[in-house]
């Protein structure tokens, strides 16, 4: 251990209010030079609010109280426009989902170069040189001319990192940096983030992934419902948790789940015979065969960008396979295959209340509102939430509402596209358990797509591993793009 540096960020008695409700706090923490703070908590626990309060980007309807000191200066007393002057130079942020943070129409090299040029005020030549160096050291050579949309998740994350740190800010605030990335890429992001404290900066990371917290080390702050539950050195807190919540959190990792009970397979409901799927001239999936039985739970795992989602869309009948045949059981109607989406807010009409969306579905399928209410209460959704719009409820709640919406039409097959990749471990475990219970109670076949192999193994009756054509097989093997049972 190095000698403790000076305190860079100091937050004291921070409370965030929305009207009379307290959303977060009071919380208190200090981050020193070369230090790391990991904030862990369930979705909607107010983790992002804490970072927004430090940055000064809280929504106008929220009120922050308490002291926020950055580099010895009281930031909470400054005007918003003054605080903006620190962005990029003292405080940098790595937002969730890098491809949303990057300009979709600008080549990745130019985006990073721009920050060197205008935030660090380098000359054009010096900015280009600095960008080239950053691209070289982050292993991004060859990606200079690419637009963010054509980069893989891991590469986009590195470009965003290069752009965020180009201003030379010693403090980096990263909001869920591993969200939506497969487990293999987590290590890359962790080593990227570790560069910040290693070079004498301060790092604040929000995550719900315990393994990321363990690899980053430093200190941890555990939040639940806006309150601070536990705080201390990461390994001490996670290895010897004091509160039941932290214990629960540590045990909610898929590796600790009880293995799935084998199901009694019924008749087949969906059959794919040696299908080949192409997208943009590239073969994503080749020679894939599958037989899905009623009540069965199958997990398809594979690396990001390996064509898992495209495969799911093809099985749902939304895309045609280039070769091969997909058959549905004869008794299935058009709405008997439903899909759960990775990004729940994107799966609901954005400007309409949730109750209205659910009512539309119920009306068309002749389901009365009492049944919908019963479903919702089984999924643990408070009916008061339904008066809100999709972007006003948390991801976990919205994913459960979308499960309720899908179940309203009484499907026979549920295709779940990474339904829990944006949820915290406890919500993930509960949601996946709920899906498993529903599958056995209602005899619904569920096909889960995930990049989390541990979860696939723990949850499914059968796992299928896809390998992407460009990537070498990981040690132990993925199977060879074939139906393979573990």
């Amino acid at each position, binding site marked *: 251990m190095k000698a403790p540096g000076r305190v860079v960020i100091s937050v004291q008695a921070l409370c965030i209010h929305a009207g009379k409700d307290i959303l977060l706090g009071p919380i208190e923490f200090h981050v020193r030079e070369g230090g790391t703070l990991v904030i862990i908590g369930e979705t909607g626990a107010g983790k992002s609010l804490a970072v927004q309060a430090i940055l000064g980007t809280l929504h106008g309807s929220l009120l922050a109280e308490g002291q926020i000191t950055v580099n010895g200066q009281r930031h909470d007393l400054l005007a918003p426009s003054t605080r903006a002057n620190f962005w990029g130079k003292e405080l940098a942020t790595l937002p969730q989902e890098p491809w949303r943070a990057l300009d979709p129409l600008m080549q990745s090299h130019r985006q990073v170069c721009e920050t060197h040029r205008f935030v660090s005020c380098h000359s054009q030549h010096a900015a280009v040189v600095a960008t080239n160096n950053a691209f070289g050291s982050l292993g991004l050579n060859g990606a200079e001319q690419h637009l963010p949309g054509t980069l893989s998740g891991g590469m986009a994350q590195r470009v965003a990192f290069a752009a965020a740190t180009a201003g030379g800010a010693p403090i980096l605030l990263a909001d869920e940096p591993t969200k939506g990335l497969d487990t293999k890429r987590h290590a890359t992001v962790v080593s990227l983030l570790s560069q910040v404290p290693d070079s004498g900066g301060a790092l604040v990371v929000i995550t719900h992934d315990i393994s990321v917290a363990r690899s980053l080390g430093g200190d941890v702050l555990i939040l639940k419902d806006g309150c601070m539950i536990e705080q201390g050195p990461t390994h001490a807190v996670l290895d010897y948790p004091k509160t039941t919540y932290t214990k629960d959190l540590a045990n909610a990792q898929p590796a600790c789940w009880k293995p799935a009970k084998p199901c009694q397979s019924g008749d087949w409901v969906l059959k794919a015979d040696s299908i080949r799927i192409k997208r943009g001239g590239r073969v994503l999936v080749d020679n894939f065969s599958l037989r899905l039985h009623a009540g069965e739970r199958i997990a398809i795992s594979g690396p990001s960008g390996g064509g898992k989602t495209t495969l799911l869309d093809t099985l749902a009948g939304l895309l045609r396979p280039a070769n091969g045949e997909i058959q549905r059981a004869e008794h299935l109607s058009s709405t008997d295959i439903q899909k759960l*989406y990775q990004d729940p807010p994107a*799966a*609901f*009409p954005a400007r309409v209340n949730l109750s209205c969306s659910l009512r*539309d*579905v119920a009306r068309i399928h002749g389901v009365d509102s009492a049944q919908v209410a019963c479903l919702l209460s089984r999924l643990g959704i408070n009916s008061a939430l339904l008066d809100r719009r999709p972007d006003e409820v948390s991801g976990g709640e919205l994913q459960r509402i979308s499960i309720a919406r899908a179940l*309203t039409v009484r499907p026979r097959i549920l295709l779940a596209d990474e339904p829990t990749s944006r949820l915290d471990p406890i919500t993930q475990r509960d949601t996946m358990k709920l899906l498993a219970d529903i599958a056995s109670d209602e005899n619904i076949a569920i096909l889960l797509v995930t990049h989390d192999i541990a979860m696939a193994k723990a949850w499914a009756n059968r796992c299928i591993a896809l390998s992407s054509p460009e990537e070498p097989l990981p040690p132990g093997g993925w199977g060879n793009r074939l139906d393979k049972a573990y």
Partner: protein
Amino acid sequence: MHSQPGRSIRDGRRITGLILLGMLALAALAGPDLVNHDPARQSLLEAMQGPSSEHLLGTDHLGRDMAARLLSGARLSLFLACLSTITAALPGILLGITASWLGGWMDRILCAFADAVLALPGLLLVLMLAAISPGSWWALYMGISLTLWVEYFRYTRQRVRIVLADPAVEASQLLGLGPGTIVLRHLLPEIGPGLLTIAAFGAATAVTAVAALGFVSVGIRPPTAEWGSMMTELLPYWRESPFLIIQPVACLFITVLALHLSVGGGVQP
């Protein structure tokens, strides 16, 4: 907090615009009855008078009551603006949704048609129709709405294509929701605010076009009171009584301003 001042200014503008529009609409609905004068009744003895209790805004060179004529002009202008906005918006929106929904040949044919209309100068179309039927309001109305629908079509087509590519629409289709529900829940809430902006701009264009055509004596013929033709009639007397010519100009200015203000700073995110 940072978005608050901008928003309140925008709201203030919008409210001002809506109040002005409301007053104009009331005045147009009540019409010349409001001042109890016939806008066409001449009285040469009372020509070119200043404001009095009898004639609130004075009289023109033929002794006609200015207030009655302005109100009658407001009725005509706003009626034509409303009518041409509705008849341009409905086909424009419907064709835009059809084109992006069906895609393929339908999309190409409709786009080619829209391009052909755009290639034709709008004013030329109006002049052609006015030549076929001189001085009639329907020629004006037809010409204006035939040129204005393209904007609605283009905007709707572009936006609907983006919204239809959304996973939310795919989810709704998988859930068995029909096209009607998708239009109502997904498309209209997304494109509605933008369409309102175009509608306000289109209405302002229509009001200006009617006045411009009246001013060059192609539009509505005298003695019908119309702001553009009133300007032409009063222009020779601007030196003797500048007060008169200012009135139709101010009416046109306020109407166009109110329409633009009513949609505020554009679409709210």
